[in-house]
């Protein structure tokens, strides 16, 4: 029983990280119909930035987090304007190749300045305080991750359901041409969604660095994982991504706990089964 609860709690913490990093990818992939393999790169850039700030300049964690997220958004905006805008028109295959190209350039850039070793982020010592949940002792960090993840999904939900931006976004997701004919400035909506997604990825990358350590090859190493979350969740679906991220987090954790030898096989077989049955994501029935 305690094992089961442990798996669930660890799996949820892990899933929250996956959710934070992947949700922006899901929205951009659903909205702009673009296969963006470079999305994990924003998580890495956020992490690398936080590494430099906390380790080299001794900036405290929270301001470093804020500064890094802003820095990533500042990088994402011209990237969208200059490069991604053209990639939207490409065929799926060309999108795959162009964004792999971007991944390579991101890796090489981080490597050029920071090398290929792990890039740890200094967190305040309080985050490792053990918290006793009764059935399990958990570092405070995990709880923070879970809380931030919950805040994020709530915030996104409200943003999409309750604000003008959300209405524009949904209109643009449903039908680009109609949205444009209603006078919605779709390129601006795209830019905002892209920047938001990059910012969220940066938050996830930094908070999740304990579980998915930051290093130059990060975007390539975890690319498949993030894409799987999006594919299983269904492109463009925030709720789908949330369920998929938590489900896959728990599944992966369970695999590691219970079947340490064949956990990965079990994980990927489950993915194969899911995708075979629901090719358009968990929440969408195959037509």
């Amino acid at each position, binding site marked *: 029983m305690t094992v089961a609860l442990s798996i669930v709690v660890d799996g949820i913490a892990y899933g929250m990280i996956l959710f934070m990093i992947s949700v922006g990818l899901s929205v951009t*992939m659903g909205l702009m119909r673009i*296969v963006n393999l470079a999305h994990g790169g924003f998580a890495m850039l956020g992490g690398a930035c936080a590494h430099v700030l906390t380790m080299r300049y001794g900036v405290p964690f929270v301001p470093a987090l804020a500064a890094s997220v802003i820095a990533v958004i500042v990088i994402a905006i011209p990237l969208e304007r200059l*490069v991604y805008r*053209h990639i939207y028109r*490409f065929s*799926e*295959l*060309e999108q*795959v*190749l*162009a964004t*792999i*190209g*971007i*991944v*390579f*350039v991101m*890796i*090489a*850039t981080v*490597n*050029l300045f920071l090398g*290929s070793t792990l890039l740890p982020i200094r967190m305040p010592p309080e985050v490792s305080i053990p918290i006793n949940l009764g059935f399990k002792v958990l570092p405070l960090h995990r709880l923070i991750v879970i809380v931030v993840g919950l805040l994020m999904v709530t915030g996104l939900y409200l943003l999409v359901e309750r604000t003008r931006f959300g209405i524009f976004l949904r209109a643009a997701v449903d039908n680009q041409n109609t949205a444009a004919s209603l006078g919605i400035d779709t390129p601006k909506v795209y830019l905002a969604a892209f920047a938001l997604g990059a910012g969220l990825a940066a938050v996830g990358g930094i908070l999740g660095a304990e579980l998915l350590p930051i290093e130059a090859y990060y975007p*390539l190493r975890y690319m*498949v994982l993030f*894409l*799987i979350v*999006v*594919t299983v969740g269904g*492109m463009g679906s925030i709720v789908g991504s949330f369920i998929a991220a938590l489900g896959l987090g728990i599944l992966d954790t369970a695999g590691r706990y219970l079947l340490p*030898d*064949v956990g*990965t*096989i079990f994980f*990927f*077989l489950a*993915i*194969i089964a899911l*995708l*075979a049955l629901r*090719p*358009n994501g968990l929440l969408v029935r195959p037509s």
Partner: protein
Amino acid sequence: MILISTIDIVRTSLGGTGKLLPVAILIICAFAAFWLFPYDLGFLTQMLIMMVFVVSFDLILGYAGVATLGHAAMYGCGAYAAGLFAIHASPDPLLGLAVGAVIGALIAFFSGLLLMRAHGLSLLMLSIAITMVLQEIASKARDVTGGADGLSGISMTPILGVFEFDFIGKTAFWYAFSVLFIILVVLRVLVASPFGLALRGIKDSPSRMRAIGTPVYWRKVTAYVIGGTIAGIAGALSAQITSLVSVEAFNFALSADVMVMLILGGAGRLYGALIGTLVFMTVRHVAASIDPFNWLFVIGFMLLAVVFFLPDGLISLPRRVAGMIGARK
């Protein structure tokens, strides 16, 4: 009798001298490379093996239009099959190639039954996931595959009982070249056949293919099996020539590289696959020997440049340049 009619078919399929030109160039290039770079035969042989692999992917992506990121599945299985066959059954190279081909075909058939129903992102993810499962199995089944240490101790008897594998790699080079050559001839015949035309039809419009009565799914499975067979042969070649198989044969990076090489050279043309492999591997070889990390800058920008400015690949470059000069006038 059968042999003669096959030769006839091949001859008519290859057509006039114009179509023999690339074949002649290929042979001349092989001899030139052999004489010019005697100390790089190992690298050249790797390149030939990779060409076999990339050309097999061209049938699937370039002709049938099926984009996967898991082509290493068949390559890896072919490599392990040939390696294990050499160790436990027979060290004959050609038998080993046949075993690699059969295993490649089987893996492609069973995974193809699932994959060829999927599209787009699901297809990419499924093909990655299947390769990951195979890689995990190979790394966990230590007793059979040697796990993370790889499978070693593969030795080969002379090809056809005559050509012994030598220390410098001359035999290996010509062995790999012969295999590539035969596969190119077979694929040339295949893509000019009604089946080849149907694959191009499927790439253009699957819905129209259904409306003319084609069981699109089974055609795609067939193409995938043929591509998988050749990928299995490429894997087997690599196992036999390097005498080693490691779990890296299933790497995602390998599947991605294959796609990159194909698009770089130009998909759907067979020779584009050769040019892409040649350029990619040469640039990597040179750039990596200067600075292994900046290689990623080179390949990253190269990819972006091709996708943005040369979507039909390097093979279209002469025509594009000619077009630009023509347009100026």
